[in-house]
């Protein structure tokens, strides 16, 4: 016990003696000093316990970092921050590193900041510090380091740009080339520091330096230049324009000046003056070339290719020279018709008909020249005769040919070139290209007199030409499908031009539809036809105009075409058995459109009737046609023929299908109700309907139908819709009733029970079972639908039978 007490006392004494010297106690003291910002005292204690306390190294680093912050001089600061970094080597316990890292990073950042300030625009020092930053521990201070680095890049961009400026200013070629590299470096650093000002300006300066050193430059896609300094742009584009002029790229120079150097300056005026001089020189050169070509043309040494190129280039040359010398430009334009004529005749002589047609078509409003229209016809004939019609050209060729031959003036033009006709006169009386006396002015040897041996028919010449062409296209085209295309197209075009010539009274230009539409004269023709309709209500004129419609919606011809097309659509819908399509056409507006034109309105029922008849002739047992026919009847106001057609078709359909048992009696009754409704006084229809009424009543009596309610509903409708013809033919039902009563009587049945009006049936007290009641109802309907007269004697009917 005593020993224990001694040990406790020794322990207490030991604790109080050694406690102040324990590392943790010392660390606490250092922490208190740190909190009191007495970093120097804290440093002394922390140095003592550097290796004895886990947090001592970090706290020591923190103290030194703060001492660095507090220090005023650059040297002292650097000393403390370097001491912080030096601590790393002394740390032996790896657990201490974790917290130390971030303190060290702060110290390193402070060092790099000091070094950045010390660099003071020195490229080498800045780069060295960048390398220092790149290799430094940045833990926890990454963004600070990043911003500091960007500052370096920004400074470097500025310095390189300024250096480049200085080099460029010397004007020495080698310096300017060096400047390009410096601007590139400036631009690279500017990109890293997002310094757009330097980026854009460097781009402009690089281009200027390249131009100064005679390097080739292309500014087409340089958007950065547009954002650079305005004065830089001015210098750049000015030098660029000069470069173009030196390279003889005059149009490019002109474009550069007009786009980028659009301001007053004697220097710019000088550029323009040089450009103008160049244009004059070019004009002189071109005139010399033209004169050489003219010489060759009359020496017959100009090839057809050269002639074509000469002709094709003439407009451009004339336009270009117009800016410099209008008179000269006009002189050049004046030679075009001669060249055109030469080229065209050469093409025709060489049988290059496609080329010739191309040449003619390029001539503005060529159809107004009878010579060109005639030549167009010759080329068209030539292509057909040489077997050169194709899917690509046949429309142009055929339409052009017809337009040419149907033009009386073209044939009259031929007379100008004949030398054998002195003993003849020519008559337009039978000409196919106009109505009689349409032409206001005709040559002396032409008249409208009767054709004779000496008064030659121009019409006969035209017909001869047409016949020759027709022989060619009918016999000479080997490809059967092309032959059909060509011949069908020829027939359609010919019919169309014949039709308009027959309708138009004035002396106008008559063209086949394709030719008229292709050359934009179709509206003129349509206007003439509209006029004819307005003056004479001539719907045939409107009909003739249909092939000429393109975008002429405001014309009467178009409205006529629209109405006419509705009928075509209706026919298509019928042929496709498309009830919905017929219904869609059946609108008030459409009806009004059709009713406006007698030609269409008066023939519509026949048109539809014939279409349906053709359809029926191909298939007389087609149920789908029935609702289509119903829609057609609904569409027309005048529809008696269609109703008759419908009722007969339905009736035949029902007979065929009831006999074949493909439809039942109820289905047939339902269909025949429609037929009866539309033809209530057609004896055949009425009789068939009555027979079906009888069949349906018998089916109900014999429990052979489930449609009792529906059948009675139809029969009730019939009761209130009996036509005169129905009444005249309904005795079939009375007979059926009489026959039934007779059979019942023979079987010993009290037939008075089946007569509602019979007094005995009321007095007898007998009641009918369900079968009897059914019989009675059928009897009653037979009686009522048989249109029997009321009688007091129930056997009257039977007696009558």
């Amino acid at each position, binding site marked *: 016990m005593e020993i224990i007490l001694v040990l406790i006392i020794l322990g207490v004494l030991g604790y109080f003696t050694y406690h102040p010297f324990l590392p943790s106690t010392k660390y606490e003291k250092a922490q208190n000093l740190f909190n009191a910002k007495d970093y120097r005292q804290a440093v002394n204690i922390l140095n003592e316990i550097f290796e004895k306390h886990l947090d001592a190294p970090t706290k020591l680093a923190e103290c030194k970092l703060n001492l660095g912050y507090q220090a005023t001089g650059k040297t002292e600061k650097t000393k403390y921050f370097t001491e912080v970094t030096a601590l790393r080597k002394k740390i032996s316990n790896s657990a201490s590193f974790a917290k130390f890292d971030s303190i060290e990073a702060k110290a390193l950042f402070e060092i790099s900041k000091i070094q950045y300030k010390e660099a003071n625009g020195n490229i080498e020092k800045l780069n060295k510090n960048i390398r220092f930053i790149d290799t430094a521990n940045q833990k926890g201070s990454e963004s600070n380091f990043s911003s500091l680095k960007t500052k370096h890049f920004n400074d470097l961009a500025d310095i390189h740009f300024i250096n480049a*400026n200085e080099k460029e*200013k010397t004007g020495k070629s080698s310096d300017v080339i060096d400047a390009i590299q410096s601007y590139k470096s400036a631009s690279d650093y500017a990109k890293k520091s997002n310094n757009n000002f330097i980026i854009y300006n460097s781009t402009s300066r690089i281009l*200027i330096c390249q131009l*100064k050193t005679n390097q080739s430059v292309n500014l087409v896609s340089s958007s950065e230049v547009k954002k650079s*300094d305005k*004065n830089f742009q*001015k*210098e750049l584009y*000015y*030098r660029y324009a*000069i470069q173009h*002029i030196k390279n003889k790229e005059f149009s490019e120079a002109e474009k550069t000046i007009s786009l980028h150097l659009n301001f007053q300056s004697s*220097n710019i005026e*000088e550029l323009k003056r*040089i450009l103008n*001089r*160049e244009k*004059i*020189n070019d*004009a*002189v*050169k071109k*005139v010399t070339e033209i*004169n050489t070509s*003219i010489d060759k043309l009359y020496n017959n040494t100009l090839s057809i290719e050269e002639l074509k190129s000469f002709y094709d280039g003439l407009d451009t040359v004339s336009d270009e020279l117009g800016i410099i*010398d209008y008179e*000269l430009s006009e*002189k*050049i334009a004046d*030679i075009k*018709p*001669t*060249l055109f004529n030469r080229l*065209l*005749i050469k093409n025709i*002589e060489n049988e290059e008909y496609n080329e010739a047609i191309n040449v003619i078509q390029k001539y503005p409003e060529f159809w107004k*020249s009878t*010579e*060109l229209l*005639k*030549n167009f*016809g*010759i080329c068209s*004939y030539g292509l057909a005769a040489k077997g050169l019609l194709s899917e690509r050209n046949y429309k142009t060729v055929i339409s052009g040919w017809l337009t040419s031959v149907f033009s009386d003036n*073209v044939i009259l033009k*031929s007379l100008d070139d*004949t030398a*054998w*006709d002195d003993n*003849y006169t*020519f008559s337009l009386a039978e000409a196919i290209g106009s109505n009689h006396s349409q032409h206001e002015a005709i040559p002396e040897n032409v008249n409208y007199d009767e054709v004779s041996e000496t008064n*030659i*028919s*121009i019409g*006969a*010449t035209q017909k*001869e*030409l047409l016949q*020759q062409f027709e022989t*060619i296209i009918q016999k000479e085209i080997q490809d059967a499908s092309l032959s059909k295309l060509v011949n069908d197209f020829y027939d359609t075009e010919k019919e169309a031009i014949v039709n308009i010539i027959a309708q138009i009274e004035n002396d106008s230009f008559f063209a086949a539809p394709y030719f008229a539409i292709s050359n934009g004269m179709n509206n003129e023709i349509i206007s003439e036809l509209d006029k004819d309709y307005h003056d004479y209500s001539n719907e045939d004129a409107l009909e003739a105009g249909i092939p000429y419609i393109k975008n002429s919606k405001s014309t009467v011809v178009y409205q006529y075409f629209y109405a006419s097309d509705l009928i075509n659509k209706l026919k298509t819908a019928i042929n496709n058995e498309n009830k919905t399509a017929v219904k869609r056409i059946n609108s008030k507006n459409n009806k009004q459109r059709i009713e406006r034109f007698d030609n269409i309105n008066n023939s519509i029922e026949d048109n539809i009737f014939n279409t349906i008849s053709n359809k029926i002739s191909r298939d007389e047992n087609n149920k789908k046609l029935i609702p289509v026919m119903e829609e057609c009847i609904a569409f027309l106001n005048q529809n008696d023929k269609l109703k008759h057609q419908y009722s007969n078709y339905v009736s035949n359909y029902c007979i065929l299908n009831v006999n074949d048992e493909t439809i039942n009696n109820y289905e047939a009754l339902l269909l025949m109700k429609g037929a009866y409704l539309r033809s209530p006084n057609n004896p055949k229809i009425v009789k068939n309907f009555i027979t079906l009424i009888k069949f349906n009543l018998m089916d109900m009596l014999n429990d052979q139908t489930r449609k009792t309610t529906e059948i009675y509903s139809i029969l009730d409708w019939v009761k209130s819709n009996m036509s005169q013809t129905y009444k005249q033919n309904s005795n079939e039902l009375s007979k059926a009733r009489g026959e039934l009563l007779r059979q019942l009587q023979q079987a010993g049945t009290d037939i008075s029970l089946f007569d509602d009006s019979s007094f005995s049936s009321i007095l007898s007290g007998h009641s009918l079972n369900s079968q009897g009641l059914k019989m009675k109802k059928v009897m009653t309907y037979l009686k009522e639908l048989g249109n029997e007269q009321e009688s007091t004697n129930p056997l009257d009917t039977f007696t009558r039978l």
Partner: protein
Amino acid sequence: MTNPYTILGVSQDVDKAEIMKSQMFAMKKKEFPLQVIAVAAKQLLDPAKRLAADFMFPAKIKVKRIQPIQCNLKYKEINTDSLNENAFNSLK
């Protein structure tokens, strides 16, 4: 279809007698079948049909003979030496 004038080898202003004569020549020449020659002659002897054959001769537009273009402009060599390339120096 070959033009009857070509078949008979005659010009456009040939008269009836010459047509008959040329028919004989063409037959001797045997360049074309006899029937073709006969049809060609018949065509040229029928004024309406002959006019159709005449149709196939291209119509010439009346145009004047082109004269060499007189130009008052004179060629002058371009001199770019006068240009002051540093006129818009932007690094002053």
